[in-house]
Protein backbone atom coordinates (compact mmCIF):
# COMPACT_ATOMS: atom_id res chain seq x y z
CA UNK A 1 0.00 0.00 0.00
CA UNK A 2 2.71 2.51 0.92
CA UNK A 3 5.02 3.78 -1.77
CA UNK A 4 8.80 4.02 -1.71
CA UNK A 5 10.12 6.89 0.44
CA UNK A 6 11.24 9.10 -2.51
CA UNK A 7 7.89 8.82 -4.22
CA UNK A 8 6.13 9.65 -0.97
CA UNK A 9 8.27 12.76 -0.38
CA UNK A 10 7.63 13.92 -3.91
CA UNK A 11 3.92 13.23 -3.60
CA UNK A 12 3.69 14.95 -0.24
CA UNK A 13 5.48 18.00 -1.62
CA UNK A 14 2.58 18.57 -4.03
CA UNK A 15 -0.26 20.80 -2.82
CA UNK A 16 -3.04 18.82 -1.20
CA UNK A 17 -6.46 18.76 -2.85
CA UNK A 18 -8.24 17.10 0.06
CA UNK A 19 -11.68 16.78 -1.50
CA UNK A 20 -10.14 15.31 -4.64
CA UNK A 21 -8.12 12.86 -2.57
CA UNK A 22 -11.18 11.76 -0.59
CA UNK A 23 -13.19 11.21 -3.76
CA UNK A 24 -10.33 9.27 -5.33
CA UNK A 25 -9.96 7.15 -2.17
CA UNK A 26 -13.73 6.55 -2.18
CA UNK A 27 -13.31 5.16 -5.68
CA UNK A 28 -10.69 2.70 -4.45
CA UNK A 29 -7.50 4.70 -5.16
CA UNK A 30 -5.04 3.30 -2.60
CA UNK A 31 -2.44 6.02 -3.19
CA UNK A 32 -5.01 8.70 -2.45
CA UNK A 33 -5.95 6.92 0.76
CA UNK A 34 -2.29 6.73 1.70
CA UNK A 35 -1.86 10.47 1.20
CA UNK A 36 -4.87 11.15 3.40
CA UNK A 37 -3.42 8.90 6.09
CA UNK A 38 -0.04 10.59 5.92
CA UNK A 39 -1.60 14.02 6.05
CA UNK A 40 -3.15 13.31 9.42
CA UNK A 41 -1.53 10.28 10.99
CA UNK A 42 1.13 12.13 12.98
CA UNK A 43 -1.43 14.28 14.74
CA UNK A 44 -3.73 11.29 15.23
CA UNK A 45 -0.91 9.36 16.90
CA UNK A 46 0.11 12.37 19.00
CA UNK A 47 -3.44 12.85 20.26
CA UNK A 48 -3.81 9.15 21.07
CA UNK A 49 -0.44 9.00 22.87
CA UNK A 50 -1.17 12.14 24.86
CA UNK A 51 -4.70 11.17 25.83
CA UNK A 52 -3.86 7.58 26.71
CA UNK A 53 -0.21 8.04 27.80
CA UNK A 54 0.44 4.57 26.46
CA UNK A 55 2.30 3.94 23.17
CA UNK A 56 0.79 0.44 22.90
CA UNK A 57 -2.77 1.66 23.27
CA UNK A 58 -2.06 4.61 20.95
CA UNK A 59 -0.87 2.10 18.34
CA UNK A 60 -4.19 0.25 18.68
CA UNK A 61 -6.13 3.51 18.38
CA UNK A 62 -4.19 4.45 15.22
CA UNK A 63 -5.07 1.10 13.63
CA UNK A 64 -8.69 1.13 14.70
CA UNK A 65 -9.22 4.74 13.59
CA UNK A 66 -7.72 4.45 10.12
CA UNK A 67 -9.31 1.04 9.50
CA UNK A 68 -12.64 2.61 10.42
CA UNK A 69 -11.92 5.43 7.97
CA UNK A 70 -10.95 2.88 5.30
CA UNK A 71 -14.15 0.87 5.83
CA UNK A 72 -16.49 3.85 6.09
CA UNK A 73 -14.98 6.35 3.70
CA UNK A 74 -17.82 5.77 1.26
CA UNK A 75 -20.29 7.00 3.87
CA UNK A 76 -18.38 10.30 4.23
CA UNK A 77 -20.65 12.87 2.57
CA UNK A 78 -18.65 16.09 3.10
CA UNK A 79 -21.22 17.27 5.69
CA UNK A 80 -18.28 18.29 7.88
CA UNK A 81 -14.55 18.59 7.24
CA UNK A 82 -12.60 15.36 6.88
CA UNK A 83 -10.43 16.57 9.75
CA UNK A 84 -13.47 16.83 12.08
CA UNK A 85 -14.80 13.44 10.95
CA UNK A 86 -11.44 11.75 11.52
CA UNK A 87 -10.82 13.39 14.90
CA UNK A 88 -14.34 12.45 15.99
CA UNK A 89 -13.49 8.82 15.24
CA UNK A 90 -10.15 9.08 17.05
CA UNK A 91 -11.53 10.77 20.17
CA UNK A 92 -14.38 8.28 20.41
CA UNK A 93 -11.94 5.37 20.25
CA UNK A 94 -9.72 7.05 22.86
CA UNK A 95 -12.79 7.59 25.09
CA UNK A 96 -13.66 3.89 24.74
CA UNK A 97 -10.11 2.96 25.75
CA UNK A 98 -10.25 5.27 28.77
CA UNK A 99 -13.63 3.88 29.81
CA UNK A 100 -12.43 0.31 29.49
CA UNK A 101 -9.37 1.26 31.49
CA UNK A 102 -11.52 2.78 34.22
CA UNK A 103 -13.49 -0.47 34.31
CA UNK A 104 -10.26 -2.45 34.60
CA UNK A 105 -9.15 0.05 37.26
CA UNK A 106 -5.72 0.40 35.80
CA UNK A 107 -3.66 3.19 34.32
CA UNK A 108 -1.19 2.19 31.67
CA UNK A 109 1.70 4.49 32.44
CA UNK A 110 0.87 5.94 35.84
CA UNK A 111 2.49 3.64 38.36
CA UNK A 112 2.52 3.60 42.14
CA UNK A 113 5.97 4.08 43.69
CA UNK A 114 7.00 4.79 47.28
CA UNK A 115 7.06 8.48 46.24
CA UNK A 116 3.52 8.37 44.91
CA UNK A 117 2.14 7.95 41.41
CA UNK A 118 4.66 8.50 38.63
CA UNK A 119 4.07 8.71 34.91
CA UNK A 120 6.49 6.26 33.28
CA UNK A 121 6.55 8.13 29.99
CA UNK A 122 7.11 11.52 31.57
CA UNK A 123 9.81 10.05 33.78
CA UNK A 124 11.73 8.51 30.91
CA UNK A 125 11.53 11.70 28.87
CA UNK A 126 12.46 14.00 31.67
CA UNK A 127 15.45 12.36 33.33
CA UNK A 128 18.06 13.22 30.72
CA UNK A 129 16.74 16.72 30.23
CA UNK A 130 17.99 18.45 33.35
CA UNK A 131 21.22 18.05 35.23
CA UNK A 132 20.24 19.79 38.49
CA UNK A 133 19.24 16.96 40.89
CA UNK A 134 16.84 19.17 42.86
CA UNK A 135 15.20 20.35 39.69
CA UNK A 136 15.07 16.74 38.51
CA UNK A 137 13.29 15.61 41.66
CA UNK A 138 10.87 18.52 41.47
CA UNK A 139 10.14 17.78 37.82
CA UNK A 140 9.63 14.11 38.57
CA UNK A 141 7.21 14.95 41.35
CA UNK A 142 5.40 17.42 39.12
CA UNK A 143 5.13 14.92 36.24
CA UNK A 144 3.87 12.32 38.69
CA UNK A 145 1.38 14.85 40.04
CA UNK A 146 0.16 15.73 36.54
CA UNK A 147 -0.22 12.03 35.66
CA UNK A 148 -2.11 11.37 38.87
CA UNK A 149 -4.38 14.38 38.37
CA UNK A 150 -5.13 13.41 34.76
CA UNK A 151 -5.82 9.82 35.77
CA UNK A 152 -8.38 11.03 38.31
CA UNK A 153 -10.44 12.84 35.64
CA UNK A 154 -13.39 11.12 34.02
CA UNK A 155 -12.69 9.86 30.47
CA UNK A 156 -14.67 12.74 28.98
CA UNK A 157 -13.01 15.40 31.18
CA UNK A 158 -9.62 13.98 30.35
CA UNK A 159 -10.27 14.00 26.62
CA UNK A 160 -11.66 17.55 26.63
CA UNK A 161 -8.75 18.75 28.77
CA UNK A 162 -6.15 17.11 26.54
CA UNK A 163 -7.69 18.47 23.36
CA UNK A 164 -8.10 22.01 24.73
CA UNK A 165 -5.00 22.40 26.84
CA UNK A 166 -2.41 20.31 25.05
CA UNK A 167 -3.77 20.26 21.49
CA UNK A 168 -5.08 23.82 21.59
CA UNK A 169 -8.35 22.95 19.84
CA UNK A 170 -11.36 25.24 20.31
CA UNK A 171 -14.20 24.06 22.51
CA UNK A 172 -16.67 24.30 19.64
CA UNK A 173 -14.60 21.80 17.62
CA UNK A 174 -14.11 19.58 20.67
CA UNK A 175 -17.86 19.54 21.34
CA UNK A 176 -18.41 18.53 17.74
CA UNK A 177 -15.87 15.72 18.06
CA UNK A 178 -17.25 14.21 21.21
CA UNK A 179 -20.87 14.71 20.21
CA UNK A 180 -21.86 17.45 22.63
CA UNK A 181 -22.50 21.18 22.68
CA UNK A 182 -19.85 23.86 23.06
CA UNK A 183 -21.45 24.80 26.39
CA UNK A 184 -21.27 21.23 27.70
CA UNK A 185 -17.62 21.00 26.57
CA UNK A 186 -16.94 24.30 28.38
CA UNK A 187 -18.46 22.97 31.61
CA UNK A 188 -16.47 19.78 31.22
CA UNK A 189 -13.25 21.77 30.73
CA UNK A 190 -14.05 23.88 33.78
CA UNK A 191 -14.57 20.79 35.97
CA UNK A 192 -11.39 19.20 34.63
CA UNK A 193 -9.35 22.36 35.24
CA UNK A 194 -10.70 22.72 38.77
CA UNK A 195 -9.83 19.12 39.63
CA UNK A 196 -6.37 19.44 38.08
CA UNK A 197 -5.71 22.67 39.93
CA UNK A 198 -6.86 21.15 43.22
CA UNK A 199 -4.60 18.12 42.73
CA UNK A 200 -1.58 20.24 41.81
CA UNK A 201 -2.15 23.05 44.33
CA UNK A 202 1.08 22.23 46.18
CA UNK A 203 3.14 23.01 43.06
CA UNK A 204 1.49 26.37 42.32
Amino acid at each position, binding site marked *: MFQAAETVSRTLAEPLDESGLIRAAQNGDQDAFERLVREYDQSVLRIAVNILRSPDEARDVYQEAFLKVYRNLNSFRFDCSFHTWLYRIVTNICLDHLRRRKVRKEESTAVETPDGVVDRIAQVKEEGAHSDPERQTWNRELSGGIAKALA*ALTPRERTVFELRHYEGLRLRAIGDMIGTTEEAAKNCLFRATQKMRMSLETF*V
Partner: protein
Amino acid sequence: MNCAEATQEIPNYCYGEVSSEIEEAVESHVAVCENCRTELARHRKFLELLEERDSVSDAGLLVQCRNDLSRSIRQEAAVNAGRSRSWRGWQRAMEQLRGLSQVHIPFRVPVGAMALVALGFIAARYTPEKFGGVRAALAEPMFSSVRSVEPNASGQVQIAVDETRRHMVSGTLQDPQIQELLVSGVTDGSNPNVRLQSIQVLHQASSANSADSDAVRQALLGALEHDSVASVRLKALDGLKQFSGDVSVRVALANVLQKDQDAAVRAKAIELLAVHTDGSLVGVLQNVVQKEENPYVRAQIAQVLAQLKASVGTY
Protein backbone atom coordinates in the same frame (compact mmCIF):
# COMPACT_ATOMS: atom_id res chain seq x y z
CA MET B 1 -18.79 41.19 38.31
CA ASN B 2 -17.99 40.20 41.88
CA CYS B 3 -15.06 38.09 43.18
CA ALA B 4 -17.00 34.79 43.16
CA GLU B 5 -18.07 35.32 39.55
CA ALA B 6 -14.58 36.36 38.50
CA THR B 7 -13.02 33.27 40.15
CA GLN B 8 -15.56 31.12 38.35
CA GLU B 9 -14.71 32.62 34.95
CA ILE B 10 -10.91 32.78 35.29
CA PRO B 11 -10.16 29.20 34.08
CA ASN B 12 -12.14 29.55 30.84
CA TYR B 13 -10.97 33.19 30.48
CA CYS B 14 -7.37 31.95 30.44
CA TYR B 15 -8.25 29.62 27.58
CA GLY B 16 -9.93 32.49 25.70
CA GLU B 17 -13.20 30.56 25.87
CA VAL B 18 -15.50 33.25 27.26
CA SER B 19 -17.69 35.80 25.48
CA SER B 20 -16.26 39.27 24.87
CA GLU B 21 -18.63 40.67 27.53
CA ILE B 22 -17.32 38.28 30.17
CA GLU B 23 -13.75 38.87 29.03
CA GLU B 24 -14.17 42.62 29.55
CA ALA B 25 -15.91 42.11 32.89
CA VAL B 26 -13.08 39.86 34.16
CA GLU B 27 -10.46 42.36 33.03
CA SER B 28 -12.28 45.30 34.63
CA HIS B 29 -12.67 43.34 37.86
CA VAL B 30 -9.06 42.17 38.17
CA ALA B 31 -7.88 45.71 37.43
CA VAL B 32 -9.44 46.85 40.70
CA CYS B 33 -9.34 43.67 42.83
CA GLU B 34 -5.99 42.55 44.17
CA ASN B 35 -7.24 39.14 45.37
CA CYS B 36 -8.60 38.23 41.96
CA ARG B 37 -5.45 39.57 40.30
CA THR B 38 -3.46 37.19 42.49
CA GLU B 39 -5.85 34.35 41.66
CA LEU B 40 -5.45 35.04 37.93
CA ALA B 41 -1.65 35.03 38.27
CA ARG B 42 -1.77 31.76 40.23
CA HIS B 43 -4.02 30.14 37.64
CA ARG B 44 -1.68 31.22 34.84
CA LYS B 45 1.23 29.75 36.78
CA PHE B 46 -0.72 26.51 37.18
CA LEU B 47 -1.31 26.38 33.41
CA GLU B 48 2.38 26.97 32.78
CA LEU B 49 3.27 24.13 35.14
CA LEU B 50 1.16 21.77 33.06
CA GLU B 51 3.54 22.39 30.17
CA GLU B 52 6.22 20.56 32.16
CA ARG B 53 4.66 17.35 30.94
CA ASP B 54 6.68 16.41 27.86
CA SER B 55 4.73 15.07 24.96
CA VAL B 56 5.90 11.72 23.66
CA SER B 57 7.30 11.76 20.17
CA ASP B 58 8.49 8.39 18.99
CA ALA B 59 9.38 8.18 15.31
CA GLY B 60 9.66 4.38 15.62
CA LEU B 61 6.08 4.18 16.81
CA LEU B 62 4.77 6.03 13.76
CA VAL B 63 6.63 3.67 11.43
CA GLN B 64 5.26 0.65 13.31
CA CYS B 65 1.75 2.06 13.08
CA ARG B 66 2.06 2.66 9.35
CA ASN B 67 3.36 -0.87 8.80
CA ASP B 68 0.56 -2.35 10.92
CA LEU B 69 -2.04 -0.38 8.98
CA SER B 70 -0.59 -1.40 5.66
CA ARG B 71 -0.72 -5.08 6.73
CA SER B 72 -4.27 -4.78 8.10
CA ILE B 73 -5.55 -3.18 4.92
CA ARG B 74 -3.97 -5.91 2.78
CA GLN B 75 -5.62 -8.56 5.02
CA GLU B 76 -8.93 -6.76 4.86
CA ALA B 77 -8.77 -6.64 1.07
CA ALA B 78 -8.01 -10.40 1.03
CA VAL B 79 -10.97 -11.13 3.36
CA ASN B 80 -13.29 -9.05 1.17
CA ALA B 81 -12.14 -10.97 -1.88
CA GLY B 82 -12.77 -14.24 0.05
CA ARG B 83 -16.31 -13.11 0.97
CA SER B 84 -17.22 -12.54 -2.63
CA ARG B 85 -15.85 -16.05 -3.41
CA SER B 86 -18.09 -17.50 -0.61
CA TRP B 87 -21.12 -15.82 -2.12
CA ARG B 88 -20.35 -17.34 -5.50
CA GLY B 89 -19.96 -20.74 -3.74
CA TRP B 90 -23.36 -20.31 -2.08
CA GLN B 91 -24.96 -19.54 -5.45
CA ARG B 92 -23.39 -22.69 -6.92
CA ALA B 93 -24.68 -24.79 -3.95
CA MET B 94 -28.22 -23.47 -4.48
CA GLU B 95 -28.03 -24.34 -8.16
CA GLN B 96 -26.92 -27.90 -7.24
CA LEU B 97 -29.78 -28.18 -4.71
CA ARG B 98 -32.30 -27.14 -7.36
CA GLY B 99 -30.81 -29.76 -9.71
CA LEU B 100 -31.06 -32.46 -7.01
CA SER B 101 -34.88 -32.23 -6.71
CA GLN B 102 -35.22 -32.91 -10.43
CA VAL B 103 -33.19 -36.16 -10.36
CA HIS B 104 -35.29 -39.35 -10.42
CA ILE B 105 -33.97 -41.70 -7.72
CA PRO B 106 -35.88 -44.30 -5.58
CA PHE B 107 -35.48 -42.34 -2.32
CA ARG B 108 -36.28 -39.01 -3.89
CA VAL B 109 -38.96 -38.11 -1.34
CA PRO B 110 -36.75 -38.32 1.80
CA VAL B 111 -33.99 -36.42 0.00
CA GLY B 112 -36.53 -33.75 -0.90
CA ALA B 113 -37.53 -33.57 2.78
CA MET B 114 -33.89 -33.17 3.79
CA ALA B 115 -33.56 -30.43 1.23
CA LEU B 116 -36.55 -28.64 2.79
CA VAL B 117 -34.97 -28.96 6.25
CA ALA B 118 -31.72 -27.61 4.89
CA LEU B 119 -33.48 -24.73 3.17
CA GLY B 120 -35.43 -23.93 6.33
CA PHE B 121 -32.24 -23.96 8.39
CA ILE B 122 -30.37 -21.78 5.94
CA ALA B 123 -33.32 -19.40 5.64
CA ALA B 124 -33.46 -19.11 9.43
CA ARG B 125 -29.82 -18.18 9.44
CA TYR B 126 -29.98 -15.62 6.69
CA THR B 127 -33.46 -14.11 6.91
CA PRO B 128 -34.06 -11.29 9.38
CA GLU B 129 -37.13 -11.92 11.49
CA LYS B 130 -39.49 -9.45 13.10
CA PHE B 131 -41.19 -9.62 16.46
CA GLY B 132 -43.04 -7.01 18.48
CA GLY B 133 -41.77 -4.10 16.39
CA VAL B 134 -38.15 -5.01 17.12
CA ARG B 135 -36.04 -6.05 14.23
CA ALA B 136 -33.73 -8.96 14.92
CA ALA B 137 -31.24 -10.57 12.60
CA LEU B 138 -30.09 -14.06 13.45
CA ALA B 139 -26.36 -14.47 13.56
CA GLU B 140 -24.47 -17.77 13.50
CA PRO B 141 -25.94 -20.26 16.00
CA MET B 142 -23.45 -20.59 18.83
CA PHE B 143 -24.55 -24.11 19.74
CA SER B 144 -27.03 -26.57 18.29
CA SER B 145 -27.96 -30.20 18.86
CA VAL B 146 -30.59 -32.47 17.33
CA ARG B 147 -32.98 -33.69 20.05
CA SER B 148 -35.22 -35.99 18.01
CA VAL B 149 -35.86 -37.15 14.46
CA GLU B 150 -39.34 -38.38 13.48
CA PRO B 151 -40.00 -39.43 9.88
CA ASN B 152 -43.63 -39.96 8.87
CA ALA B 153 -45.37 -41.95 6.14
CA SER B 154 -45.79 -38.98 3.81
CA GLY B 155 -42.03 -38.51 3.52
CA GLN B 156 -41.83 -35.48 5.86
CA VAL B 157 -39.26 -35.52 8.63
CA GLN B 158 -39.78 -33.61 11.88
CA ILE B 159 -36.51 -32.72 13.56
CA ALA B 160 -36.30 -31.00 16.96
CA VAL B 161 -33.18 -28.83 17.20
CA ASP B 162 -32.05 -27.09 20.39
CA GLU B 163 -30.07 -23.94 19.64
CA THR B 164 -28.39 -21.23 21.66
CA ARG B 165 -27.90 -18.33 19.35
CA ARG B 166 -27.01 -14.67 19.41
CA HIS B 167 -29.65 -12.26 18.13
CA MET B 168 -28.80 -8.79 16.92
CA VAL B 169 -31.77 -6.75 18.06
CA SER B 170 -32.34 -3.17 17.04
CA GLY B 171 -35.17 -0.77 17.68
CA THR B 172 -35.93 2.71 18.93
CA LEU B 173 -35.61 3.75 22.56
CA GLN B 174 -39.41 4.05 22.69
CA ASP B 175 -39.74 0.33 22.09
CA PRO B 176 -40.74 -1.45 25.35
CA GLN B 177 -38.81 -4.57 24.35
CA ILE B 178 -35.63 -2.57 23.78
CA GLN B 179 -36.15 -0.90 27.16
CA GLU B 180 -36.64 -4.28 28.82
CA LEU B 181 -33.41 -5.58 27.26
CA LEU B 182 -31.53 -2.48 28.40
CA VAL B 183 -32.78 -2.92 31.98
CA SER B 184 -31.51 -6.55 31.81
CA GLY B 185 -28.22 -5.19 30.47
CA VAL B 186 -27.79 -3.07 33.62
CA THR B 187 -27.64 -6.23 35.73
CA ASP B 188 -25.49 -8.26 33.34
CA GLY B 189 -23.09 -9.86 35.79
CA SER B 190 -20.43 -10.90 33.33
CA ASN B 191 -19.66 -7.73 31.42
CA PRO B 192 -19.18 -4.29 33.03
CA ASN B 193 -19.01 -2.65 29.59
CA VAL B 194 -22.51 -3.91 28.79
CA ARG B 195 -23.70 -2.49 32.12
CA LEU B 196 -22.05 0.86 31.39
CA GLN B 197 -23.48 1.11 27.89
CA SER B 198 -26.95 -0.01 29.02
CA ILE B 199 -27.03 2.63 31.74
CA GLN B 200 -25.84 5.31 29.33
CA VAL B 201 -28.53 4.51 26.76
CA LEU B 202 -31.25 4.20 29.42
CA HIS B 203 -30.19 7.56 30.77
CA GLN B 204 -30.61 9.11 27.31
CA ALA B 205 -33.98 7.39 26.85
CA SER B 206 -35.20 8.56 30.21
CA SER B 207 -33.96 12.15 29.66
CA ALA B 208 -35.90 12.21 26.41
CA ASN B 209 -39.00 10.93 28.25
CA SER B 210 -39.04 7.91 25.99
CA ALA B 211 -38.61 5.28 28.69
CA ASP B 212 -40.61 4.08 31.67
CA SER B 213 -38.96 6.33 34.26
CA ASP B 214 -39.86 4.11 37.22
CA ALA B 215 -38.21 1.03 35.72
CA VAL B 216 -35.16 3.09 34.74
CA ARG B 217 -34.84 4.58 38.23
CA GLN B 218 -35.07 1.14 39.86
CA ALA B 219 -32.45 -0.28 37.50
CA LEU B 220 -30.11 2.64 38.16
CA LEU B 221 -30.61 2.41 41.94
CA GLY B 222 -29.80 -1.31 41.79
CA ALA B 223 -26.59 -0.59 39.87
CA LEU B 224 -25.63 2.21 42.27
CA GLU B 225 -26.07 0.01 45.33
CA HIS B 226 -24.82 -3.33 44.09
CA ASP B 227 -22.43 -2.93 41.16
CA SER B 228 -18.85 -3.83 42.05
CA VAL B 229 -17.33 -1.53 39.39
CA ALA B 230 -16.99 2.13 40.38
CA SER B 231 -17.33 3.49 36.84
CA VAL B 232 -20.67 1.68 36.49
CA ARG B 233 -21.84 3.20 39.78
CA LEU B 234 -20.68 6.64 38.51
CA LYS B 235 -22.63 6.18 35.32
CA ALA B 236 -25.69 5.14 37.36
CA LEU B 237 -25.32 8.40 39.32
CA ASP B 238 -25.29 10.36 36.05
CA GLY B 239 -28.58 8.71 35.17
CA LEU B 240 -30.07 9.35 38.61
CA LYS B 241 -29.42 13.08 38.38
CA GLN B 242 -32.88 13.67 36.92
CA PHE B 243 -34.44 11.82 39.87
CA SER B 244 -32.34 13.58 42.52
CA GLY B 245 -35.45 15.05 44.19
CA ASP B 246 -36.96 11.60 44.73
CA VAL B 247 -36.94 10.34 48.34
CA SER B 248 -35.76 6.80 47.54
CA VAL B 249 -32.92 8.24 45.42
CA ARG B 250 -31.88 10.63 48.20
CA VAL B 251 -31.80 7.78 50.72
CA ALA B 252 -29.62 5.77 48.31
CA LEU B 253 -27.32 8.79 47.82
CA ALA B 254 -26.93 9.23 51.57
CA ASN B 255 -26.01 5.53 51.83
CA VAL B 256 -23.44 5.93 49.06
CA LEU B 257 -21.93 8.88 50.89
CA GLN B 258 -21.46 6.79 54.00
CA LYS B 259 -20.51 3.43 52.54
CA ASP B 260 -19.12 3.64 48.98
CA GLN B 261 -15.41 2.81 48.83
CA ASP B 262 -14.73 5.03 45.84
CA ALA B 263 -14.07 8.75 46.43
CA ALA B 264 -15.23 9.77 42.94
CA VAL B 265 -18.58 8.03 43.54
CA ARG B 266 -18.96 9.76 46.90
CA ALA B 267 -18.06 13.13 45.34
CA LYS B 268 -20.68 12.64 42.64
CA ALA B 269 -23.29 11.64 45.22
CA ILE B 270 -22.71 14.97 47.01
CA GLU B 271 -23.24 16.86 43.75
CA LEU B 272 -26.60 15.14 43.31
CA LEU B 273 -27.67 15.58 46.92
CA ALA B 274 -26.85 19.30 46.75
CA VAL B 275 -29.21 19.83 43.79
CA HIS B 276 -32.15 19.82 46.23
CA THR B 277 -31.92 21.03 49.80
CA ASP B 278 -34.07 19.57 52.51
CA GLY B 279 -33.98 19.46 56.31
CA SER B 280 -32.13 16.16 56.53
CA LEU B 281 -29.29 17.15 54.17
CA VAL B 282 -27.33 19.25 56.65
CA GLY B 283 -27.40 16.49 59.28
CA VAL B 284 -26.27 13.84 56.79
CA LEU B 285 -23.42 16.00 55.50
CA GLN B 286 -22.25 17.07 58.96
CA ASN B 287 -22.19 13.43 59.99
CA VAL B 288 -20.26 12.29 56.91
CA VAL B 289 -17.71 15.13 56.78
CA GLN B 290 -16.18 14.02 60.08
CA LYS B 291 -15.45 10.53 58.75
CA GLU B 292 -14.51 11.42 55.19
CA GLU B 293 -10.87 10.57 54.47
CA ASN B 294 -10.52 12.04 51.00
CA PRO B 295 -9.57 15.75 51.15
CA TYR B 296 -11.31 16.58 47.85
CA VAL B 297 -14.59 15.00 48.95
CA ARG B 298 -14.24 16.60 52.39
CA ALA B 299 -13.73 20.04 50.80
CA GLN B 300 -16.74 19.45 48.58
CA ILE B 301 -18.96 18.60 51.57
CA ALA B 302 -17.68 21.65 53.42
CA GLN B 303 -18.49 23.79 50.38
CA VAL B 304 -22.08 22.49 50.24
CA LEU B 305 -22.45 23.05 53.99
CA ALA B 306 -21.16 26.60 53.56
CA GLN B 307 -23.74 27.19 50.80
CA LEU B 308 -26.40 25.94 53.20
CA LYS B 309 -24.98 28.31 55.83
CA ALA B 310 -24.31 25.35 58.13
CA SER B 311 -21.19 24.61 60.13
CA VAL B 312 -18.88 21.70 59.36
CA GLY B 313 -19.04 20.41 62.93
CA THR B 314 -22.15 19.07 64.67
CA TYR B 315 -21.17 20.45 68.11
